[in-house]
């Protein structure tokens, strides 16, 4: 069988120019054999979800270091529903306090990684969760 690599969109949203973290994650996922689509900075939630739909991505990783996570994460969740793409694994990372992370996970963000999270943990999470999404349907 001709196995297709997992495809993941790594995104930066809103007025947040700190992309080192996003680039480090993008590289780690690439080195784990995934096809990573990087959106660049200053994306609107609608653009991020549109990208994931067109690229047939298995997952979206959103990095936010601006403090606007309680606004932007829910907007992406909303857009995923609006574009009938709720099955895409949505996860994120950034400087996000534990109580906010808890709330975001209740809203439908699959996982939140904070500074200090080992790269391997993130790679394992994406491999497992996006892999699960592949098995039933495709």
């Amino acid at each position, binding site marked *: 069988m*001709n*196995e*297709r*690599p997992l*495809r993941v969109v790594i995104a930066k949203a809103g007025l947040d120019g700190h992309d080192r973290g996003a680039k480090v994650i*993008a*590289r780690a*996922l*690439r*080195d*784990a*054999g*995934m*096809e*990573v*689509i*990087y*959106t*660049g900075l200053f*994306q*609107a939630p*609608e*653009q991020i979800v*549109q*990208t994931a*739909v*067109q*690229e*047939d991505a298995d997952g979206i990783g959103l990095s936010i270091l601006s403090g606007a996570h309680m606004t932007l994460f829910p907007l992406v969740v909303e857009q995923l529903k609006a*574009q*009938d*793409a709720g099955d895409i694994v949505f996860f994120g990372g950034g400087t996000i306090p534990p109580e906010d992370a808890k709330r975001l996970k209740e809203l439908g963000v699959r996982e939140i990684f904070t500074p200090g999270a080992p790269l391997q943990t993130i790679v394992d999470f994406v491999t497992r969760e996006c892999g699960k999404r592949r098995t039933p*349907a*495709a």
Partner: protein
Amino acid sequence: MTDDALLRDFEMHKPRALARAISCAESGRGGDIVRALYSKTGRAVTIGLTGPPGVGKSTLASALVRKARGLGKSVGVISVDPSSPFSHGALLGDRIRLVEHFTDEAVFIRSMASRGHLGGLAGATADAVSLMDAFGFDVILIETVGVGQSEIAIAELAQTTVVALQPGSGDSIQVLKAGIMEIADVFVVNKADHPMANQLRREIRSAMEMLQWDGWVPELVATQALAGEGIEQLWAAIERHMAYLNETGEIEGRRRDAFVHQVRQLAMGRIERRLDRVLESESSTGIDPYAAAERVISKLGL
């Protein structure tokens, strides 16, 4: 999702269905879908964009999309980036330059990883073109991997091939090296504000003078893609080439080239997979490579 459901969604014009269909083609399962939709293809204009890394292919693509949208045309963009030969992963970043078109529903952008294919395209790029064509896009832009001296596959697949070059990166010998001169229908000197831009234009002209041109003579356009300068002229040159193809009937030859390219990709893909299986079982002791190759060929029944 079953193929039937996918086809239904595709015909209802859902972008997600197009995205999924391209994924199927990428994983070698596109046969039924492409076959079912093939009768709807043949309408789109296909433009190839190639050139060395950093020349501004994605920026030119974005400017051309803007121009086409201004004319009311819908556009599909396929951007091919290299896969890592080690991890097989890829970092696909061409979208960054196309950001202004992300939420335009008449623009569909797909990044493809080359997945080990040489020549600047991915194995399933031709299938992706067929699918975008069947979906109804007026213009399909295909941006190759940035390499510069070998991506001739694009000339087979696209009706008009644009070769972008930039000033200050090597002398005329680079331009003369096999392949690039012969595949261009339109040359672009991007970053035309560079002090060496005029020199590059002269070098391209003099390189062109050394070749025999039969029919279409490639046009040369200077652009500053980032500022949108020269894009009108580039679009006009592409349109003149398209008109030339249609008037002379050469368009049929181009369509046949694209068809042959697609068939070769599909056939090679299957042969390579079988070859890999046969090679795994070959022993390397007590046999010379020529004899082993003969044995492999006969095992493949070729």
